[in-house]
């Protein structure tokens, strides 16, 4: 009888230990995933001028009116200011719209009202805008019919004087070219480099339009 009780106790203890180890394993794998994502942010696919602040996307969007915004867990206490560009390791995602001490709101590049001066590989200059979530970025101003543009060309910010972004921040690559004879321009669809549907960690570039 006593052996049986001992075995039961031992069994219960082993079960508890297994549960504990499983929990620990889950915690460790979660931490590993966080570290991997942070490391990813350090391997930028393009040059950036100056210092960046790594932040985590804080909350989901609880209303459809918020679909062109992302909230991040860093604010003015970390030196973030309105207008600063926000990027991931893959490319530009938007700029800072509002700041409080420990949080900020990012205005996403997918908003059709978000205009960005762009430069194509061949040095053609134009103006692009978002076209909604899960839709390509559209460059529909400034690319003349004579400009040399090919599918696959990288599209970056132009960084002209008084532009809201510094130059050479990667936006994406040209995926479709439509020639508009009536407007005498080329309209480009651009596959965005950053995946805005799965934002986790982002970087705020400490650069303001006046700097």
């Amino acid at each position, binding site marked *: 009888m006593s052996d049986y009780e001992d075995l039961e106790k031992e069994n219960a203890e082993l079960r508890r230990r297994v549960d504990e180890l499983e929990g620990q394993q889950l915690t460790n794998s979660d931490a590993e995933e966080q570290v991997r994502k942070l490391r990813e942010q350090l391997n930028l696919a393009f040059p950036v001028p100056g210092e960046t602040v790594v932040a985590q996307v804080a*909350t989901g969007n*609880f*209303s*459809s009116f918020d679909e*062109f915004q992302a909230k991040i867990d860093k604010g003015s206490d970390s030196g973030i200011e309105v207008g600063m560009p926000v990027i991931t390791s893959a490319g530009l995602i938007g700029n800072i719209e509002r700041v409080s001490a420990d949080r900020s709101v990012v205005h996403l590049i997918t*908003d*059709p*009202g978000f205009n960005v001066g762009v430069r194509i590989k061949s040095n053609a200059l134009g103006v692009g805008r978002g076209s909604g979530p899960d839709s390509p970025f559209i460059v529909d101003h400034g690319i003349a019919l004579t400009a040399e543009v090919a599918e696959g060309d990288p599209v970056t910010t132009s960084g002209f004087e008084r532009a809201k972004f510094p130059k050479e921040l990667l936006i994406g690559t040209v995926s479709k070219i439509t020639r508009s004879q009536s407007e005498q321009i080329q309209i480009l669809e651009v596959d965005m480099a950053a995946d805005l549907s799965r934002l986790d960690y982002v970087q705020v570039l400490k650069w303001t339009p006046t700097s």
Partner: protein
Amino acid sequence: MNLRWTILVVTALVLQVAIAASFPIGGVVIDFMLLIAVCAGMVGGPQRGAVVGFWSGLLYDLARDGRLGLSALAFTLVAFGVGSLLVAVLSVRRGLSMVIAGLGMAAGELLYAVEGELFGEHTLSNPRLWAIVGINALIGGLLSPLVLRVCRWAEGPGERSSAIVGVIDG
């Protein structure tokens, strides 16, 4: 706002954050908080609607990290308006109450969009504005009999405006 209304508004917030945001319909997140405000106006009249609309909007603004007061103002005005309309009409059938709830939802979304635009939120220029308004109006109207029932519980029989009873029981 009594304890029952408080429970209802907080429950709606949890539903909004945990369920509505995770399961958009046609790509649109249904605004339960607005639906509660509209139904509060329908059940309790303009004053009840205004109070519940204000608190549900304020909590919604806080949860969204949005511009504080935008939803609170829109929900207050719409719930007050719907409550005033029903006091004037005195009695409506259930089918019509669904239409009124749907129209209230549409008015609330549009009012929020106008306010948002005034504060630089790009809400009126949202390419899916009419989808947001339309789907919220449709789903809000369809859900309104259930929400009105819950609101009637929150209001309690003693406090219900006699002018509004016709909406629920008619």
